[in-house]
């Protein structure tokens, strides 16, 4: 027992609904105390994965362990996890207090421990004074907190959150992001949350698993996912990027279809078809001829300009391709449509994605 046990360990799990494969052979280990995000577009299998951890859906094949204990086929009431549901699923016929007490009562926890733990949970989510209200008398943010308290009062080993902030407006969502992060540090347990919002995933989690069409495409820290996407899908889904079709050169560089050579590290064998990912905010514009063509630049012509206040976005035609350049904190507008320019970037900003 020297190796730390993963909080959640998913081994070759597949879930089929009739003939639709919702989750396709997923392997994933989530560490103890980690804030982990499952990110992907709707229908990618992230919610089904979460529901399988909760026990609300059972895997078709594969194994699922929580702190080393096999629970793949166990009913939800036999698992040391609790869930915050997407629309909260608060019991409408119960008061805030009755909602929060529910799990403890089901596990036959008696007073004084019962009332003490409920009081602590209510204090933790700052709902004191609201105990006797019913869910329909609360705002969205308050309902969200009741849902959190109702789950956390049971002291689960893992807390599962299904799009927890999806029903809130933007300002409240940003507040709740901070609150959730703080809450996770306070209670110190593993949080697994599902979201389709990549900014939310980047802002909140320690690690992200990106899913698409039932497959887990990449797992990594927000920085790894953003800076070193493993596939076109991940590069494109997380933030904005320019994906330029290219072929791997024999000299460890890549060549675009236009013939331009770009220096970028890759382990893919020469001759492979790849794409180069260039983040718009990592590129800059200079008048043509002032930058040396050292494998970190492309010549083009400004086609369109979008002024956003805090940034200016240029669309630059490079041969038959179009490259987006995002320039932040710029004063004035030195370039106009039709200007001959050079798009350049720092070493390491161009990333090769193989598939």
């Amino acid at each position, binding site marked *: 027992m020297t190796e730390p046990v993963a909080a959640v360990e998913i081994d070759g799990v597949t879930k089929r609904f009739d003939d639709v494969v919702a989750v396709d052979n997923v392997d994933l280990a989530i560490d103890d105390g980690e804030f982990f995000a499952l990110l992907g577009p709707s229908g990618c299998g992230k919610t089904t994965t979460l529901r399988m951890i909760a026990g609300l859906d059972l895997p078709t094949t594969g194994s699922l362990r929580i702190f080393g204990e096999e629970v793949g086929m166990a009913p939800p*009431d036999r698992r040391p996890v609790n*869930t915050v549901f997407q629309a909260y*699923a608060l*019991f409408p016929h119960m008061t805030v207090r009755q909602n929060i007490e*529910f*799990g403890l009562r089901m596990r036959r926890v008696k007073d004084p421990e019962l009332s003490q733990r409920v009081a602590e949970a209510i204090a933790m989510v700052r709902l004191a004074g609201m105990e*006797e209200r019913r869910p329909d008398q609360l705002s969205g943010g308050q309902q969200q907190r009741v849902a959190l308290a109702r789950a956390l009062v*049971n002291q689960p080993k893992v807390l599962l959150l299904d799009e927890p902030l999806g029903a809130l407006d933007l300002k409240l969502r940003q507040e709740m992001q901070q609150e959730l992060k703080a809450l996770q540090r306070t209670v110190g347990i593993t949080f697994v949350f599902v979201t389709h919002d990549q900014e939310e995933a980047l802002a909140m989690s320690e690690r992200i698993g990106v899913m698409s069409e039932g497959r887990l495409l990449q797992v990594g820290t927000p920085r790894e996912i953003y800076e070193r996407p493993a596939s076109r899908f991940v590069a494109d889904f997380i933030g904005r990027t320019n994906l330029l079709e290219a072929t791997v050169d024999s000299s460890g560089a890549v060549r675009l279809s236009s013939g331009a050579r770009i220096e970028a590290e890759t382990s893919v064998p020469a001759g492979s078809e790849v794409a180069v990912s260039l983040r718009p905010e990592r590129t800059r514009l200079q008048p043509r001829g002032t930058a040396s063509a050292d494998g970190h630049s492309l010549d083009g012509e400004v086609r369109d300009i979008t002024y956003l206040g805090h940034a200016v976005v240029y669309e630059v035609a490079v041969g038959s391709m179009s490259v987006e350049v995002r320039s932040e904190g710029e004063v004035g507008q030195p370039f106009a449509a039709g200007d001959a320019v050079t798009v350049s970037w720092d070493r390491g900003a161009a990333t090769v994605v193989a598939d």
Partner: protein
Amino acid sequence: MAGVVEVGLGRRTRRWLAAWAWVVFAFLYVPIVVLVVFSFNSSSRVNIWGGFSLGWYGEALSNEVIISAVRVSLIVAFVSTVVSVVLGTAVALALDRYRFRGRRTLDGTVYLPIVIPDITMAVMLLVFFAEAFKLIDSFGPRLTLGISTVALSHIAFNISFVCVVVRARLDQFDRTLEEAARDLYASAWETFRRVTLPLIMPGIAAGGLLALTLSLDDVVISAFVSGPGSTTLPVYVFSSIRRGVTPELNAISTLMLAASIALVLGSLALQRRRASASQQTQVL
């Protein structure tokens, strides 16, 4: 009102419609008023006013045949309501939740007793009981029509009504609430008892009230399947009419009217109390 632009109906049309509404209202309620007024008539002639009297009420309440009919009606109504609420709710849950062989057929036919005419239902049940008795009697017992056949028949049509009302409620039910309960360590049974049942209870109560009313109201089916000593009140009233309307019948009808109004007011009061209870918590 001044300043409000009239759209659609002109003033004349509106007056006519209002007058028409009053006519319809009178059409509905004048017979009831006549019935109630004449139940207090001291004369033994139904259509001649002989002064105010409570005499016919005394007569009706001391008539042992009537008392027995009331007793039968209440027993049948109670038993058929309880049984059909349990069975109808179970059928509604099964149709809502599970996929099983014959589900579609059951789904399509469970409502049949609502649409087929009472008289068809009555003949069907009578034939059914006759055949069933023939079969069972061949093993020894001698069964006859009586209070249990009336109760069984009422259960047979009430299940459909309860089922329809409960299913309507289940349609709006959010299944994630059950998932939440399961996630919070409730067993399947506890989930049903503490989450599902309380939330579909208004539907079950409405179905039960409907069943109670339909059972107390039924004449045609009860008349066919009742035997000696198992006459319900509506059947008694109906058969007495053939001997002529007496002020006694007016008194009974008025009592039945009062009972059903009390039932409706009672359920309204219950709903209102619940609504105000939840409003009070809002103020706090």
